[in-house]
């Protein structure tokens, strides 16, 4: 990025903050009900010192991580199976397509019934949120593999298993990475809502950022709500960056163009 672009970006953000502050002070419509950025900043300063804020980060982050890891480790092999094995696809794809349109949050009651702990229930809902996206991307990617790569690998002496591992898997990696980035985005949407609904285990138990947000709203601490909103944005952004960097590491050939 050029210096000019950075400067213009910073200017845009400053202008946004200034308008917000002005709107809050002048009781402009809609924005007027909010505390200004200065109040939000001071609320943030207060929260940073309290252990609960960081525990909430940790609690939500852990849920996202496990839900995401579960979605990847089940979704990638499942997607590959559907793409490679016509019989498996004929059998498994219809129930998958029936379950897919059900919003993950609709699973919250059943998830609470399924799992012994609150955390597991939330993680399961997060898993569902990311799972469908991961599977669809893997299937789509694996089905579009250049068939000649498979032929040439066999011609070079590769057996069935080697073809899966050394050709189909790497050829599908770009789609797996896309699924991971999109799926990661969904996990943060789901974790907030799931924590709102379930209570996340209570404030002292690391209720999570979503819980903290709702708790602040019910206590009328709107500045704190905004701090949570921004925190969630930062968390979501940071995790997609991590996923993207990891996937680039896995695919050095993608930069080679």
């Amino acid at each position, binding site marked *: 990025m050029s210096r000019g672009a950075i400067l213009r970006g910073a200017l845009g953000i400053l202008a946004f903050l200034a308008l917000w502050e002005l709107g809050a002070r002048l009781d402009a419509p809609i924005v007027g009900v909010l505390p200004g950025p200065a109040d939000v900043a001071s609320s943030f300063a207060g929260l940073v010192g309290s252990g609960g804020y960081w525990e909430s980060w940790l609690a939500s982050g852990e849920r996202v991580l496990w839900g995401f890891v579960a979605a990847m480790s089940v979704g990638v092999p499942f997607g590959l199976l559907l793409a490679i094995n016509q019989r498996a696809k004929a059998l498994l794809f219809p129930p998958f397509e029936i379950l897919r349109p059900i919003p993950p949050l609709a699973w919250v009651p059943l998830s609470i019934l399924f799992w012994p702990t609150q955390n597991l229930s939330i993680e399961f809902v997060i898993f569902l949120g990311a799972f469908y996206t991961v599977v669809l991307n893997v299937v789509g990617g694996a089905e579009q593999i250049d068939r000649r790569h498979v032929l040439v*690998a066999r011609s070079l002496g590769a057996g069935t298993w080697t073809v899966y591992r050394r050709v189909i898997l790497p050829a599908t990696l770009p789609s797996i990475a896309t699924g991971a980035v999109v799926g990661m985005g969904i996990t943060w949407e789901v974790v907030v809502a799931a924590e709102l609904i379930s209570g996340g285990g209570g404030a002292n138990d690391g209720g999570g950022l979503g819980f903290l947000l709702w708790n602040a709203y019910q206590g009328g601490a709107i500045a704190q709500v905004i701090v949570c909103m921004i925190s969630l944005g930062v968390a979501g952004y940071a995790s997609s960056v991590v996923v993207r960097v990891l996937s680039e590491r896995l695919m050095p050939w993608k930069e080679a163009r």
Partner: protein
Amino acid sequence: MNAASLQIEDVAKSYRNQSGELVALSSCSIEIAPEELHVIVGPSGCGKTTLLNAVAGFQGIDGGLIRLGGETLCTAERPAEPGADRVVVFQHSTLFPWRTVLDNVTYGPVIQGRRSRAEARSLARERLSQAGLAGLEDRYPAELSSGAQRRVEIVRALVNEPRVLLLDEPFRGMDQITRDLMHEALLELYDRARPTVLFITHDIEEAVFLGSRVTAMSARPGRVKATIEIDLPRPREAGLRASARFNELLADVLSLVHDEASRAFVAGDREAA
């Protein structure tokens, strides 16, 4: 090198589609000697790719027999499995984009368990440098020119020491200048390793310049029209193209193929691969 003979005996193959049966190959027989660079030339739809796919083990045949090194490779009842003794180089690059040049070349020997990774790597380096590709070992295919990609691909095939190397219009779509350079590069590799080669093309000049013998095929049904001995000395160099003998042979093959092509042209057959 374990170059083997390849005998194609009375092979037949048809496809079924909406408009009925399409006979791709009919009583097609070709004999290729060990270390021969045999070119099959013919118009689109003459079944030359079908033939190559049958040898490669990508497709079955309906009748006849194919022998490799005297042993039966496939019959109508028993199709061949693909294998490293018959490596194919396709029309468009099939280098694995996720592997470096070196890892592409070592792929065959390593997965077949014929060589240790270290052995395969030193062999691959040697072969790449013989092909004028030294310094590109750690690049990814996408970073290479199409000509370099092609050469890497031929090296990747040759490093397996196949009993027959199958080339399916490998230089199609290249500009004339690159293609001429590719011809010389291929011949250099051929002269060094002397594999048996089955080369498929619809380019007559390419066929005459490269081939030890050239078989012209007719379309609908795909049949062998004639095989012409190309008695040009090796090693062959670009200047050969201007020689009288080259142009005589060119005219011979051209007249064989041209009859066929114009017959199909007049009949208005839809082109098929």
